[in-house]
């Protein structure tokens, strides 16, 4: 591996070596894709039904929601060893790391609870009642607001991270899946899988500011189901995974208009960028692979086989 690196560095993105980590929900593993070769170089065992995945700010630890093991696992990304488990509440599905690099906000899907865990003391510091089947998790860049979306209650729950209490509950369309603060935290975007929309909220007032609709030619609207999404570095463009329509939407983040659709693998779910955000990696649950998208050209350029039902994806820059 080390022997190869100098050669590859000339051809691939210079200076940085990078990996994309993908959780395989039905294999209980993580597939690690080396971006210099675009191949899976490691397959690491995890707890049962791994879904959400995120790295600590210095990338020394990776947190993995092992949903059916009812725990969040903390792994050493270099060795792939599980360092310890965190108490997470039951059935942790998705989580978000607070900007303080210390508190994890975890959606407990079966319990209608959001659990806040201190990763240093390894204790639960709060549990907050939310709607049924919490899933999407986000935290504002200033760390003051955390969001949980609940799939069956169809709401975004706004949590004051200081008091750890709800201060607003806003309805969205049916089956919200993913939430992100964008544009410096001034907007909150929430995707609704069954509703087929993304609702844009004004963060300051928690009121609806806009709605993004999707329409894929030749695909029935019922199958156009927005789930995960990410914004480019300039925050002018959003890429939205449209689930069983097997397409990504390219959305103008200012006008909320869809500019393009990109065909990817089957039941596209979540995604992650590489470091300079020139490439996008989508997890395709049913086809069991990852599609690599050229962000500038808006074209799929490669498909990489991973495990069964890939779900989450996260970037790990590796110093060499």
């Amino acid at each position, binding site marked *: 591996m080390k022997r190869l690196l100098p050669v590859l560095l000339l051809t691939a993105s210079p200076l940085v070596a990078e990996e994309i980590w993908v959780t395989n929900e039905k294999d209980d593993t993580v597939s690690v894709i080396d971006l210099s070769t675009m191949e899976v170089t490691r397959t690491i065992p995890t707890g049962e039904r791994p879904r959400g995945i995120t790295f600590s700010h210095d990338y020394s630890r990776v947190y993995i929601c092992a949903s059916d093991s009812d725990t969040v696992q903390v792994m050493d990304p270099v060795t792939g060893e599980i360092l310890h488990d965190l108490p997470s509440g039951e059935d942790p599905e998705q989580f978000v790391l607070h900007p303080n690099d210390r508190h994890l906000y975890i959606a407990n*899907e*079966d319990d*209608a609870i959001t659990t806040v865990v201190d990763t240093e003391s390894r204790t639960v510091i709060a549990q907050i009642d939310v*709607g*049924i*089947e919490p899933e999407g998790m986000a935290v504002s860049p200033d760390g003051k607001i955390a969001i949980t979306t609940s*799939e*069956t*209650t*169809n*709401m975004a*729950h706004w949590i004051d991270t200081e008091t750890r209490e*709800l201060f607003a*509950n806003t*309805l969205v*369309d*049916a*089956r919200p899946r993913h939430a992100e603060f964008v544009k410096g935290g001034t907007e909150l975007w929430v995707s609704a*899988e*069954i*509703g*087929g929309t993304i609702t844009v909220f004004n963060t300051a007032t928690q009121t609806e500011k806009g709605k993004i609709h999707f329409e894929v030619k030749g695909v*029935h609207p*019922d*199958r156009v189901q927005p789930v995960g999404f990410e914004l480019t570095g300039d925050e002018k463009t959003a890429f939205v995974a449209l689930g*069983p329509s097997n397409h990504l939407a390219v959305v103008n983040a200012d006008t909320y208009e869809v500019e393009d659709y990109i065909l990817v693998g089957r039941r596209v779910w979540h995604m992650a960028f590489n470091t300079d955000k020139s490439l996008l990696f989508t997890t395709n649950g049913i086809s069991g692979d990852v599609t690599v998208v050229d962000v500038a050209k808006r074209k799929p350029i490669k498909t990489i086989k991973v495990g069964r039902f890939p779900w989450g994806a996260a970037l790990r820059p590796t110093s060499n």
Partner: protein
Amino acid sequence: MKILNRLSALLAAAVATCTLAIPARAEVTLQVTYLAQHVELPPVLSNLDVPPDDLGLAGARLALKDNLTTGKFLKHNYALDEIQVEIGGDLLSAARQALAASPYLIIDAPAADLLAVADLPEAANALIFNASAPDDTLRDAECRANVLHTLPSRAMRADALMQFAQSRRWTDLAMITGGHDSDRTLAAALDRSARKFGMKITARKDWIFDADMRRNASQEVPLFTQDMGDYDLLLIADETNDFGRYLAYNTWLPRPVAGTEGLVPTAWSPVVEQWGAAQLQSRFSDLAGRDMAPRDYAAWAALRVLGEAVTRTNSAIPATLRDFILSDAFELAGFKGRTLSFRHWNGQLRQPIPLVTERAVVAQAPLPGFLHQRNEMDSLGIDAPESKCTAFQ
């Protein structure tokens, strides 16, 4: 006594004043009655399946919990009254009593009883959900403007099966029908559906044995099916699950079975796990201590439909909720991969139909390629142009 009366009147006045003091963003309370008419179940050969006492009802109880969780963030409250009418009991007086308390009913009763309730003068402005009767007539000539259906009709399930048979090119069909009226009604639905999708049922037989098939199915069934000619798929119409289970693997020709046995088109099954269904299944089994059956799903959907309508309209007025539920704006996430909504011409909840075995979902209708100008799910069941339902016009 008089003093007591006056005291309670005073108290009532005090409560009224308090209620008035609450600002206009009023709390909404929706009260729903689950009204079940117990019926005589015909005897069946096997003792394996004991129908649960809370069939259907447990689904409504789960939906109540789901609605309450959502409601607490919106100051919406929900209550569920449960009324069980014994065999031979007075369903109509129970219905009148329920309608005096609330216009919202979920009915678990045979078609004739359901219609009797729906046609009560007290029910004129009610909103009634049929969560147990699969009869096509209820969605067709005998439809009622105050009745919505969350359980799929026999025609919808038959069409789901026929779409599958067609997509597999299993176009030559045979059918064995049981002796109950419901078996013959199902057979008629399968017949209609086979024709709809351009297939034919080439051989038919009525189930005639009165012996105990648990002991001699392997000797009798091969002979019984020997003269049915060649076919691709054997349909079984046995709604009480009496004899169907003894036919599989005992037919003269090695052929798959489908209908009420083998490959079964159904509203819901414990094997449905995609599209977040696993969460609904586990919430249900935590609550009821058993698997979720189709009628549980239909009752769950009925109360969730009401919950969703209250959430979106902030109202508990029947006409407001009914208008919203039948509008294009209504959508229910029903854990079957598609947005559920109502057919505005007959009040049927349009929904995908899983085709299941005991262990897996084999396919889910509508199958790819079965298109429809309005909604692919409308390729299942009796469609608007052929509908004899006029109550919704």
